[in-house]
Structures are given as C-alpha cells and as structure tokens.
C-alpha cells in the first residue's frame, strides 16, 4: 500500500505544480521592472501605481462589484426559494429547470440572453442586463447548496416545532432560516465569485457604455499586454482568496454557534 501511495503523491504533486506555476509567474511578474514579461529585471510597484491611476479600470472595478453584489443578492433569494421548493415539493420539472442553466455551455446562455434583451425586451445592454444574466446562472448554484443542506437535516426538528405550536411563519423564521443560513451565505459568496469572475456571459450581455472588469482585462490581454494586467490579476487573486477565507470563517462560526447551542 505504501508503495502505491508514494506514486500517488508524486502524481498529485505534479498536478499541484501544474495548477500553481502559471499563477505564481503572474504574481512575480507583477513586481517586475520591465515592460516585457520575459525576464526578471528588478523589483517595482509601478504597475500597481499605474493601475490605481487608471480611471477607467477603477470604474470597471466598481461596476463589477455592483454587478456581483446585486446579482448574488438576487440569486441568493431566488435560489433559496428554489432550493426550499425542490426539497419540499419534490417537483422534478422544477429541479431540471433550476439546474439547466448550470449544465449548458455559458456561450449559449450568453447568446440567448443577448437576443432576448435586444429583440423582446428592447433593453439597452448595460449593467441591468448583466445583473439579470448573472442572477440567472447563479440561481442553480445557490439552489443546489441550500437543497443539500436541507437534505442533511433531521425532519423531526420541524415536526417538533409544529407540535409545540409554532405557526408556519414562526417555524420558517425561527427554525428553518437559521439552519439554512450557512448554506445561504455559502451560496451568496459563491455567486459573488462566479459573477466577478464571469467573462463569457458578461461578454455577450455587456453594453457599450460602462466598463466592466473582465472586459477591460480581455482588451488588455488582446490589444496591449502590459504588466498592469499582472498587477490587476494579483489583486483579483487576493480578493477571491479573501472571499473564500470569509466564507470558511463564517460557515465555521455558524457551526460553532450550532454546536454551542447543542451542548447547552
């Protein structure tokens, strides 16, 4: 057994190296004092400075944050409702419909929403269309997380709440909601990172007016590669790392509260 385990370790380590080398190189070159991404010249922070003086990029960051916060808010509410509905009413049609946007290639969702917004709603593409599009594909993720949380829970909790005379609103508000809160937070954070990260759907539903972060990055990569891209990449990595750490902290603190409640 030991022998095969060491082979697995080697194979696993190679995959980790494959996963992390490119990202490490991006971070290292973001501090490189050269316009070219080919050799190390010296340490500098000038690319970060250039980034903070790039007004369009700052607006793009703000716009993307607004989009991510609004769409994760919408997706969390709709997705939680969807998760509850799937769990309670066991409707197959419902779950197929909620999960379908996840299972199809993003480009199809992007294209169909583009045509829909322009042809049917006559909507000028912009922030609103992106928020709607992101909400659409995030609902399924929240629904999955909430549903699996509900599945893990003991049905008798709700029954005993009912037996003790709780109204259905009290039952929801005092029992169900606190129990699914960690799942809702996890779903919201996941939607947030999915939205900030999304390029394909944003690419099709964006308008001409407002700069959006992934589109800015795309033009930087395609048109004029400067190490500024490395700097914004590094900052984005920090942002997602931060979101994940918050997620872990929050969900473990929820667990902690629950454990405390259980022990008392």
């Amino acid at each position, binding site marked *: *057994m030991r*022998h*095969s*385990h060491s082979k*697995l370790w080697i*194979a696993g380590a190679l*995959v980790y190296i*494959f*996963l*992390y*080398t*490119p*990202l490490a*190189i991006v971070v290292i070159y973001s501090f490189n004092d050269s316009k*070219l*991404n*080919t*050799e190390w010249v010296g340490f500098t922070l000038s690319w970060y400075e250039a980034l903070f003086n790039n007004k369009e990029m700052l607006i793009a960051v703000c716009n993307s944050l607004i989009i991510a916060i609004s769409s994760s808010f919408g997706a969390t509410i709709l*997705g939680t*409702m969807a998760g509850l*509905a799937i769990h*309670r*009413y066991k409707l197959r049609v*419902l779950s197929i*419909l*909620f999960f379908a*946007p996840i*299972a*199809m*290639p*993003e*480009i*199809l969702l992007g*294209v*169909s*929403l583009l*045509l*829909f917004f*322009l042809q*049917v709603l006559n909507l000028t593409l912009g922030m609103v269309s992106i928020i709607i*599009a992101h*909400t*659409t594909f995030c*609902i399924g993720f929240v629904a999955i997380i909430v549903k699996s949380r509900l599945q893990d829970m003991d049905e008798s909790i709700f029954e005993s709440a009912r037996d003790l005379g709780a109204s*259905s609103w009290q039952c929801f508000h005092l029992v169900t909601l606190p129990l699914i809160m960690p799942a809702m937070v996890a779903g919201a954070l996941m939607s947030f*990172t999915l939205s900030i*990260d999304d*390029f*394909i759907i944003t690419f099709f539903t964006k308008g001409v007016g407002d700069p959006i972060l992934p589109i800015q*990055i*795309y033009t930087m*990569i*395609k048109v004029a*590669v400067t190490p500024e891209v490395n700097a914004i*990449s590094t900052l*984005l*990595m920090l942002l*997602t*790392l931060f979101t*994940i750490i918050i997620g872990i902290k929050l969900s473990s603190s929820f667990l902690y509260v629950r454990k405390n409640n259980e022990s008392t």
Partner: protein
Amino acid sequence: MIKEKNIVRWLLSGVPLLFLLLFFIAPSLIIVFTSFRFPGEFGGLAPLIAPMGTVDVEHGLTLEAYQFFFSDTLYVRVFIKSLQVAVVTTLICLIMSYPLALLIARSKERLRNIMLLLVVLPFASNFLIRIYAWVIILDPESALSYFINLILNLVGISPVIFLFSPFAVLLGMVYVHLPFMILPLYINLEKHDPILLDAAQDLGASHWKCFWYITWPLSISGVSSGIVLVFISALGMFAVPDILGGTGDILIGNLIKDQFISTRDWPFGAVLSIMLALTILLIIGLGAYFLRRLRKRNYAT
C-alpha cells in the same frame, strides 16, 4: 391554514420559476425563432413584415441559415475539430485528475481539507487570467521556450513556437477545466469504503487489480459527471482559442462569437448555437445510454 400553505407553495416555487421562464426558457426559444429569420442588411435581423412602400426587402421566415451551414464543409469541419479538442481535453483532465482525487480521498481529514482548498483556489482566480498566464509562459522569448528550443537545437531540430498553436489551446483548455474533473471525482472516491481494498489485498490482489476491479468500477458515476462537466464547457469554449490559439485554431465557440460580435449575422449565429446544443444533447444522450447498458451488463454477471 390550508390556504396559507398553498400561498407559500406558490410563492416558493412560483417566483424563481417565473424568473427562469422569463430569462432562461424564453431566451432559449428566441434562439430557435431567430434561426429562421433573414439577417438584416446592416447586421441584426431583417423585419418580419416588409416595411410599407418597399418591395424587394427580405422578410418573413426562411431556412437560409440552415442551408448556409451545410453548404460549406468548413462549418462541419470546425464542429468536428471542436469535438476532437473537447474529447482530448476531457481525457487529459481525467488522467491528470484521477491520481490527485484518489490521493485527496485517501488522506487524513485535516490534510484533505487543505488539499481540496488548494484545488479550488486557482479555480477561483479570474478565468481570463488563468488563460493569460500561459501567454507569459509560452511566449517565444520566455525562459521555458528558450530552454526547450536550446535542447531541440542540440538534437538538431529547428526551434518551435508554442504560443498561438493547437498545443497552446489544448494546454489552456486542460488548465481551465481541471478542477471540474477533480471535484466530482473526489466527491465519489471519498465515499469508497477502504475495507473493500483491504479485503482484496488480504486475498492477494495486486494494486493494479484492486484499482481495476474495485476502485474504478465504483467511481464510474464520479467519472461520468466529471466528463460531462468538462466536455460541455470545453465544447463551447471560445476564450482559450481566442487568447492562446492562432488564426487556424478556431472552434465552434469562436464561430458563434463572431456571428454576434463582428459579422453580426444573427440567424447564422443562432443556427450554430442550436447545432452546438444538439451536439451536446446527442453526445450526452449516447453516453447515458451506454452507461446504462454497461450497468445492466454488470448486474447480470
């Protein structure tokens, strides 16, 4: 009381349902409708009903875009190439992910969570940046290119350019899709009972036999969900060939993107999208069919 329950029920399922009917089902139907229209003179769509006072304006519904798709083998060839790239990407992802997923699943719980987090972290960093990182690495003047070409030069092979090549596209495809394979595999492998392997080893089975007769058959459902996730996403991908590929490395995704962004031939773009959706449905359907047959045969023996 019953009434209130009904209201809750309708609200809970109705609100998200309505949202998705409006922003998912309706747009999907619009694609089908668009594929039967004429393209507009300046992009977009021609009107359904001829405007007053004009005679020779194309209007109404047509199969023109479908005919155009099959009129030139170019488009079918791009589809076949995209299928090849997607299949190869999926296979490489599977081969690379399996050992790692197995390793994580067999590690101690503490270590396991850290290892999982390390898989998810690069996945959470920006999608475009993960592709762009390979532009730096594969650049003709990068250290890696220099080193490889130095060796090739010693052997007497002329220098190779990695960036903007099919190789770069494949590398990028594998890189962005790897976590889609690792996670479902891990979720499956983690549930396996180690007692099974112990028993097989006590009975004298080799590592390889243990894997082939126990671990692998038990992991088929994880393998297939990983394959589905990677394959679907890889088949519609346009950003990777766009950034890492040359002009000849166009895939279906790029064709579709061009119809909506640069050429603005919406009906043809809609036809390409429908073809992509049909290809995926067909392949997933076939896969599910064979998987079921395989299961039945295994039960029979």
